[in-house]
């Protein structure tokens, strides 16, 4: 039963992503062509909502379901990884028109062609796991 809230959060995310069209290849093209405010509005509001949440969590030391004080995960600065990995991710994002979340949402929305895309992304994550020690971080 404890897991239901995570599934529910995913369901809401999926619906919002489709209804806001953020999972659309067309919208991603438009965003990178700077032809519409649409995607910037969505990303901007998501960051704003998350920003206020993070501030509230820190300010009032909110506790999670198990009674632990919540703390946003710290992602350490690793310049080469953030830059090179970021560039590679960005290229793939525009080529597929989807980042990892929307890939799964689109699959749920009936686009079975997401299966080879998700499989390729999984292979990419696997390749990173293998090559990790040889890459600059």
């Amino acid at each position, binding site marked *: 039963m404890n897991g239901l809230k995570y599934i529910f959060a995913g369901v809401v995310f999926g619906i919002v992503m489709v209804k806001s069209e953020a999972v659309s290849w067309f919208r991603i093209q438009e965003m990178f062509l700077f032809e519409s405010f649409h995607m910037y509005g969505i990303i901007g509001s998501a960051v704003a909502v998350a920003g206020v949440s993070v501030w509230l969590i820190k300010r009032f030391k909110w506790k999670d379901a198990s009674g632990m004080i919540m703390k946003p995960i710290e992602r350490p600065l690793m310049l080469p990884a953030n830059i090179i990995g970021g560039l590679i991710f960005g290229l793939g994002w525009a080529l597929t028109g989807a980042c990892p979340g929307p890939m799964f949402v689109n699959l749920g929305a009936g686009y079975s062609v997401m299966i080879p895309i998700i499989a*390729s992304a999984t292979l990419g994550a696997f390749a990173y796991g293998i090559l990790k020690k040889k890459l600059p971080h």
Partner: protein
Amino acid sequence: MMFIGSAFGVSNNLENICCMLGAEKVSDHFKFDLKERLPNMLFIAGTLIGGAIAVFLLSDGSLTVEISENTKAHISSLGIPYSEGLLPLTLFNWNALGSISGLLLMVGGGFMVGFGARYAGGCTSGHSISGISNLQASSIISTIFFFIGGLIATHFIYPLIFQP
């Protein structure tokens, strides 16, 4: 997800799939306790259901994305027809996997999404939304480079693949 006591991020689910398929045998990178990552996996399962509900229950099964006229003109100049639906099915379909452009977009693009996200330490959800909202330098820099990568692909690689 931060509200419910776990680090939100979608792309680590790709590692979870690797782990389930036994990748720990080839790299220690995949040695972790899947139980700790259960929230993110349940979340991803939920997004599948959410996507289905949005398309099949909350609309009549077809969606039309009203992008700007200039974007429509741009993609049709590349020979990509604007169509209804969330994505252009002429580019993204199973048969297209047999063409060079289809392989580049779906297999090449997909691979880069997975590789790049794990290398950069997160994707749009983990870095661009969770990380930036917490004002983390690594997330701000990663997001800037996500964008640079996307701009390069849109303005240079697409025209190269689909020569107008």
